[in-house]
């Protein structure tokens, strides 16, 4: 883990209020893995006080990318950073996706900003597996395709792709794939992960999900981010340290 000032190399507004930041930091870029996250200090002062967690979206040499949506004060401040400015980051944090399984096909399933970690995962998997990506959003403006491939889209309002949610879309398409060789990697809002867990367990498809939780520290010292273990009723796991990526079997969503 490092605490370091990353330097803004570039900022792109991908959609209204959705930004892609390219940040220079050899420490982070050379050590972070898909599904891990970093914790960003949005300002130097007490406002906002706590760091804000973001998945690593992609890595290119000494640069890493963060993709985010303006949500509240913290993301608003981060969105205002200019090229050349420093952003204090802490990371790499948590456990990323399992990169060593032997499935042949990866289905990446994203809800909204849940597509953020998948550019990097796509890059890493590209020469090992076949990849298909399912993205769901409320409307076409929520569907970010940056760095993804073989994309299937669903929108709640039908403004792009299948009208409905992304798990429905996945169910519709699942027979196109050979289930025995599949593995699902997912990231998105809790209701989506919940539906996905049920589906994956029913269909007996291996499935890893990246979860979210309000956090204070991001590296295991505050106990602020519990998630119920599926294996031990008396145990909470920590999203920041034991996750954010879990095998769906291990957690209660």
């Amino acid at each position: 883990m490092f605490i370091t000032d990353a330097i803004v190399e570039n900022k792109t507004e991908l959609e209204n209020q959705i930004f892609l930041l390219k940040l220079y930091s050899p420490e982070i870029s050379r050590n972070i893995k898909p599904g891990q996250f970093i914790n960003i200090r949005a300002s130097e002062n007490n406002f906002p006080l706590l760091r804000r967690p973001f998945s690593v979206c992609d890595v290119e040499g000494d640069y890493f990318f963060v993709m985010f949506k303006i949500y509240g004060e913290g993301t608003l401040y981060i969105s205002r950073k200019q090229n050349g400015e420093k952003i204090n980051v802490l990371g790499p944090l948590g456990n990323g996706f399992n990169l060593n399984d032997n499935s042949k096909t990866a289905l990446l399933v994203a809800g909204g900003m849940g597509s953020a970690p998948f550019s990097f995962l796509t890059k890493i998997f590209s020469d090992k597996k076949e990849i298909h990506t399912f993205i769901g959003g409320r409307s076409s403006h929520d569907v970010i395709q940056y760095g993804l491939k073989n994309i299937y889209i669903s929108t709640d309002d039908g403004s792009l792709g299948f009208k409905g949610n992304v798990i429905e879309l996945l169910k519709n398409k699942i027979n196109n794939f050979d289930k025995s060789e599949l593995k699902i990697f997912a990231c998105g809002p809790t209701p989506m992960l919940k539906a996905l867990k049920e589906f994956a367990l029913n269909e007996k498809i291996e499935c890893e999900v990246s979860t979210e939780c309000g956090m204070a520290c991001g590296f295991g010292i505050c106990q602020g981010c519990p998630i119920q273990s599926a294996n031990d009723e008396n145990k909470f796991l920590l999203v920041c340290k034991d996750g954010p990526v879990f095998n769906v079997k291990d957690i209660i969503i």
Partner: protein
Amino acid sequence: MKNLSVKIGDLVFRNPILLASGTVGYGNEISEFTDLNKIGGIVTKSLSLKPRKGNPPPRVVETASGMLNAIGLANVGVEEFAKNKIPYLKKYDTHLICNIAASSVEEYVECTKILTGEEKISAFEINVSCPNVKDGGLEFGNNLSAVAKITESVKAVTNKPIIIKLSPNVAKISEFAKVVKDSGGDAVSAINTLVGTAFNIRTRKPKLFNVRGGLSGPAIKPVALAKVLEIRSKVDIPIIGIGGITSWQDVIEFMIVGATAVQLGTINFINPKASELMIKELEQFLIEENFNNISELIGSYII
């Protein structure tokens, strides 16, 4: 060379900077950022007799220059702590202070008994003030005779110093400090978190599962300073100042109003290197202001 060391009873701390209970777990994660050998000491997450699972999420929420937490004293329990956490901490030449939380006087006593044989433990900090546990926490902290009873009873089963961590959610904190002193306590820590809450205006539900939580961070610093000053001006007992410290200047401010040492809490989440970084600056301050010993600052306010 300036002397940063401070004393609480017979305990000598190499500098007044300790890490606060509940904000550094049992030391392993934070040690990746801060060299624990360089700071005065570390206080464990509150330990209870049996492991505690803690509250369901959400457990933390940010507020203006502060945060609310309702962790619910999630901890591994004293036995697991002794078996699996102390060995790691033994590697560090720093004071280990064990914070204990319990829901009865007997439980406090039992926890202390179990741990008092551990050589690595320098002192116990007794948390009578955690606002998050329904079965006792707040009640003890608000009850003078309960605090007296706990202090006496725990003192009776250990030779190690007893520090009572006081609740700020009382009208006169100095009355509690006095009771601690009169009951044989060696020091007080002040303050624990203030009771607070926050609600989501759309769902009309609390932002913490537990509804109420403890407010910490810079927002509470003025309150914490006033509590330390109140104790200092009324009771002759060493005080460990806590509440909203984020800079070396804050450390000095707490010492001026009467703290012998301080604990850093919330800042560890934001900058886990903070404690180590402050030490150099404290020394620089002593040089600039012509003090030889940082202890000269304790209670040095001019009113």
